[in-house]
């Protein structure tokens, strides 16, 4: 029995349907979140929904539980042994990265408190949906690779990357100019500074995620990955979902929580 197969013992069809169900849950929760913001104006509820969404992403899309699946492997040169330490390394990196995002979030809470900048709600919801759909395809891509379906991996990873580019364009080429037209600029005050710093830092991570996917796609086309050995695919996937997870908190923080300020 291949050592990696322990972590994904599901058959392909049920793994794919699990990804779909999680996507539907996340979509419903996003809808609930938007509805809460429209009608109830309650920050604690929005935080709760964000935490539930983040939990679903971390468990089902980022399979954080694999960290604990340390196998009794003594051969320090084996792929299985390296995989365990690679995973720990990646998650430590994500942890350090989340301090940056956590710092930005704290900045937002400290500087803006119960207020938020005047942003286009439709655009915010649209880019959020785009990123969520990209996570769905990312999950499909990884599942395909785990079951050795390279063709499906290439298709789904390409879709993910294109959606990532669409998200980037939506934020940088549409939302930023739109905000600037509305008077929210990087220099227009604390709200503008916080908005551009948060979305800018996040967009930069999406950009690196796109680059990561480009590399992985190229290597996959060359046949460098297999169902048993595809750490780079797993890393790109977990990183991509991490960037989505950050947006799960940034979206309500910027668009939904608090009273509008001019």
């Amino acid at each position, binding site marked *: 029995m291949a050592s990696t197969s322990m972590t994904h013992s599901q058959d392909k069809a049920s793994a794919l349907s699990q990804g779909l169900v999680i996507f539907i849950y996340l979509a419903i929760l996003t809808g609930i979140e938007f509805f809460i913001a429209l009608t109830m104006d309650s920050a604690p509820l929005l935080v709760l929904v964000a935490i539930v969404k983040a939990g679903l992403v971390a468990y089902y899309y980022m399979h954080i539980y694999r960290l604990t699946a340390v196998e009794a492997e003594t051969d320090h040169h084996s792929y299985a042994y390296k995989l365990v330490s690679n995973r720990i390394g990646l998650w430590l990196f994500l942890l350090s990265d989340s301090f940056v995002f956590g710092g930005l979030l704290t900045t937002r809470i400290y500087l803006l408190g119960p207020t938020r900048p005047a942003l286009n709600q439709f655009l915010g919801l649209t880019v959020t949906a785009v990123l969520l759909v990209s996570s769905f395809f990312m999950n499909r891509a990884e599942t395909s690779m785990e079951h050795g379906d390279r063709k499906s991996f290439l298709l789904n990873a390409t879709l993910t990357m294109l959606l990532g580019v669409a998200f980037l364009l939506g934020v940088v080429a549409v939302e930023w100019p739109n905000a600037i037209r509305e008077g929210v600029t990087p220099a227009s005050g604390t709200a503008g500074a916080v908005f551009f710093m948060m979305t800018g830092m996040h967009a930069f991570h999406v*950009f690196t995620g796109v*680059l990561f996917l*480009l*590399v992985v796609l*190229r290597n996959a086309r060359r046949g460098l990955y297999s169902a048993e050995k595809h750490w780079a695919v797993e890393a790109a996937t977990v990183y991509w979902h991490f960037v989505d997870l950050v947006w799960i908190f940034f979206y309500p923080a910027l668009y939904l929580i608090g009273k509008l300020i001019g």
Partner: protein
Amino acid sequence: MSWKKVFGTLLALLLLVGCQPKSSTLEVQNAWARPSIAGQNDAVYFVIANGTSQDDTLLSASVEIASSTELHMSMSEANDVMTMKPMQEVAVPAHQNVEFAPGGYHVMLVGLAKPLEAGDTFPIRLIFKTAGQIQVQVTVKEQ
């Protein structure tokens, strides 16, 4: 094209986006006015971006589609009363933007000769002490 070249290009693009060139002239940007009906008054809004190292002053404005124009500033007095103050001139300090926007500075158009509808454009001439005359197109729009 090799992958190194692709990355190089992307990186170069990223750097370019980072270093937006700063203009070294005085510019009038984003001029707009609300739709209005003939005979009525209206206001023109814009941003004066003084990229030069010299202070400048906006002295007057003129349009062909209204009988006269005035430089105004809306301001609030006590108890939510809003009023407008005619301005003889508006200072535009070096390296600064002066914003003409609803609720603040605006060029008031007195007695429009024709209705203005969303999508229309018309020229406005602004006279500055140092930069001289600058003419820009004003776009008529709701917001």
